[in-house]
């Protein structure tokens, strides 16, 4: 089977191996039914070019984007979807590089109207991408550092302090030999940790983590880079924009400052919304998004699926138990 060349909406292409369903499941998995479905539905969930119902498996560059755009424009209010999503990403990148070149403040605002607050925007992109360009540091580690955000207040205070004390902009600091005093073997170990994690989790070699997003009833899937989001709220709003023709639950809203959902939150969203966001983790289980800390989620998420709320109810009891046992 030839590996399709996959391009996402930004135009970055990352050839990925075709995912095989794993026959290794975990003891806690009781969702064999769901897994069977996912195995059987592989054909349906495969990325395909062409209009819904077409049998063609080939893809050509550019068709993907235009098809999506065309469809979107047909729906009211969705004409902005792709555009805003694009600017969500590219605007953010501009904003970030402005921050580096300009005031030296790390804070940045996202054009494109994300409702995520300033604290989270600050750390939207790992500065490592910028690190590489700006100085002669040894290769920065993608994704190893924690994505958990310390309190927004502390972040803002820190920025003020930095500006007041007049420290040199960190981006321009050169590396000093033998400083910090860390043993070489320790550095090697830590440097190899990150690529391993991302390889296992996202099957990608570089600093991005593309996963497929499918939606029940949608004729085609999307691909998103999990590394471009810092928390569930951002992921949620991005997916909302992407699939805004469908309703996505309110699960993201309650997450500011929290790492995971409480029991009541889960029940709220399951009962209150038509659709829920689920993901397949490394072990082949389908999990409710929002249980685990963001970093853990990105490490273990292989693909995302927006399910009808009624289908997802079956997940809830097990998730509850996991929630309870983890707390």
């Amino acid at each position, binding site marked *: 089977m030839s590996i399709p060349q996959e391009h996402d909406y930004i135009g970055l292409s990352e050839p990925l191996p075709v995912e095989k369903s794993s026959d290794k499941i975990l003891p806690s998995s009781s969702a064999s039914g769901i897994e069977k479905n996912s195995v059987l539905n592989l054909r349906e969930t495969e990325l395909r070019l062409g209009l819904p119902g077409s049998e063609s498996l080939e893809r050509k560059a550019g068709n993907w984007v235009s098809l999506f755009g065309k469809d979107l424009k047909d729906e009211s209010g969705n004409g902005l979807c792709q555009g805003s999503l694009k600017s969500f990403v590219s605007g953010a990148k501009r904003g970030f590089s402005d921050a580096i070149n300009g005031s030296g403040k790390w804070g940045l605002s996202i054009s494109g109207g994300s409702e995520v607050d300033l604290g989270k925007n600050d750390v939207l992109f790992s500065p490592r991408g910028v690190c590489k360009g700006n100085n002669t540091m040894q290769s920065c580690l993608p994704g190893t550092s924690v994505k958990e955000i310390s309190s927004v207040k502390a972040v803002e205070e820190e920025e003020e302090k930095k500006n007041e004390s007049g420290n040199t902009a960190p981006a321009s600091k050169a590396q000093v030999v033998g400083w*910090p005093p860390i043993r070489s073997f320790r550095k090697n170990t830590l440097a190899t940790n990150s690529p391993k994690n991302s390889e296992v989790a996202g099957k990608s070699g570089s600093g991005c983590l593309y996963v497929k997003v499918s939606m029940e009833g949608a004729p085609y899937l999307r691909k998103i880079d999990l590394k471009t989001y810092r928390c569930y709220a951002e992921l949620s709003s991005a997916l909302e924009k992407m699939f805004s023709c469908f309703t996505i639950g309110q699960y993201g809203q309650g997450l500011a400052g929290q790492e995971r959902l409480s029991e009541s939150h889960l029940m709220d969203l399951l009962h209150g919304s038509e659709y829920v966001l689920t993901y397949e983790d490394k072990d082949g289980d389908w999990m409710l998004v929002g249980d685990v800390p963001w970093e*853990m989620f990105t490490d273990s998420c292989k693909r995302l699926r927006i399910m009808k709320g009624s289908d997802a109810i079956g997940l809830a009891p097990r998730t509850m138990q996991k929630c309870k046992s983890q707390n």
Partner: protein
Amino acid sequence: MNPDPKKSKVLPSNLPNSNGSSHPHSLFPDEVLEKVLSLIDSHKDRNSVSLVCKDWYNAERWTRSNLFIGNCYSVSPEIVARRFAKIKSVRLKGKPRFSDFNMLPRDWGANVHSWLVMFAKAYPFLEELRLKRMTVSDESMELLAKSFPQFRALSLSSCDGFTDDGLKAITTHCGNLTELDIQDSVTVDVGGGWLSCFPENFSSLEILNFSSLNSEVSFEALEKLVSRCRSLRVLKVNENITLDQLQRLLVHAPLLTELSTGSFLQELTPRQYEDIESAFGNSKNLQVLSGLWDATSFYLPVLYGACSGLTFLNLSDAVLQSGELAKLLAHCPNLRRLWVIDTVEDKGLEAVGSSCPLLEELRVFPVDPYDLDHRHGVTEMGFLAVSRGCRKLRYVLYFCRRMTNAAVVTIVQNCPDFTHFRLCIMNPRQPDFLTNEPMDEAFGAVAKNCTKLRRLSVSGLLTDTTFEYIGKYAKNLETLSVAFAGSSDRGMQCVLEGCPKLRKLEIRDCPFGNAALLSGLKKYEMMRSLWMSACNLTMKGCRLLAREMPRLNVEVIKDDGSDEIQADKVYVYRSVAGPRQDAPSVVLTL
């Protein structure tokens, strides 16, 4: 008057009797003295004993069996061979500590070979050799393997120079080996064939550590080895060993007290998961656990069954978040030592404070030492949280990107028993995060409050005031590490005039010049060594020191591109062996 040094034993008939002899020592027979002294292990005590009088000096040197040499160049193999007769175990240290951070040229020295040649002649019954920061060639290993029929234990810490061939010689020929411990040794791909060279009937191994060696070993050979070495109590494997392989090893060795796992990330079947979980559950004797590369929250729970007896948990290879650490620590109430990576952040350290009341040692390593994003890692809050919960803390190594004077003052009030306080604020010359002042008061508080302090590493923005405090209050300080600190020569002078027990002083990137260097003239002979790099020393000052103090070796390492006047890297140490003969060309001995 003195007993003949060559005499082997004092026979009763030789004893001077009380009415015939002229000195009071004769009432105390040498034989008895030797018997008593043979019970004394501590080399410090033995050194004191040997200074009492010549009788005691001789009695001591006949009975010393454990040899400790803190600086291999402070004495020569020949001198050692002349003095001591019955050495069975040797501990030898070579390069200055800053070699760990790539600050020494490759071929700087500390090669063990000349020592082994001497040992082969003088101590054929040598049983143990423990080396730190020394170069060990394959040739040396072969010599070691073939020269000592009773050889039992080899421990190499931060050593280099050997390959698979050298290790093969050891595993092939040392039939009585109980310990093979290779830690932190920075080697290129060494090769893994050595493990397969243990003979089929070899079963004496008790300690095996190859966790820092990169190469794959044959798992089949390892499994067979572990299953036939019934006394194995320490097993530290490298990252290449997988989880299910680990499970099989654990089944063969349920009596392990120390374990370092391999990679902790692997897709397991449910059965495999259960198996590894029960294997850990059966390891009731585990006290020390490390390795855990790539461990994630899914796999950590397999450990829980083995955690209740843990006293030392080394997570410095496991990139964990705060929640994962908290959950793990909930199962480890008896922890005395904990090493973590700063991805656990302050929140993780709060969990340390609340879960580990018996904690005595904490080390926090940075996941990315060059990370410019100052929001990651740990801060003063995490350290404070630990100090509130772990009042018995006595050893800390803390890498952070922000710290305050107030926090440190509170910390040492909570924990006055610190013996080792190593604080590394990673941004050089960074002031107090809140007040923007120097961190003088922080380390002043450490010096004042922690009366048992033996080792101190300072960082952040520091003026001479810090060193005034240290010199004045740190009466038990033995090791001091200074970087990017001080305002003038006075700083270093305060320390040299103050700390009476100072033995090792290492300084880099400080504004200390010749005046500071020369103010310690009298002191250096009482110290093991002094290191100064990127300070304001000149060749003139170093030559003056060398001239004034002939029993000090003053070595200057020339960097490329440095001029004839500046002395970039200076290493000063006392020696009874004179200047060393094996220095490479970049090292000048003055």
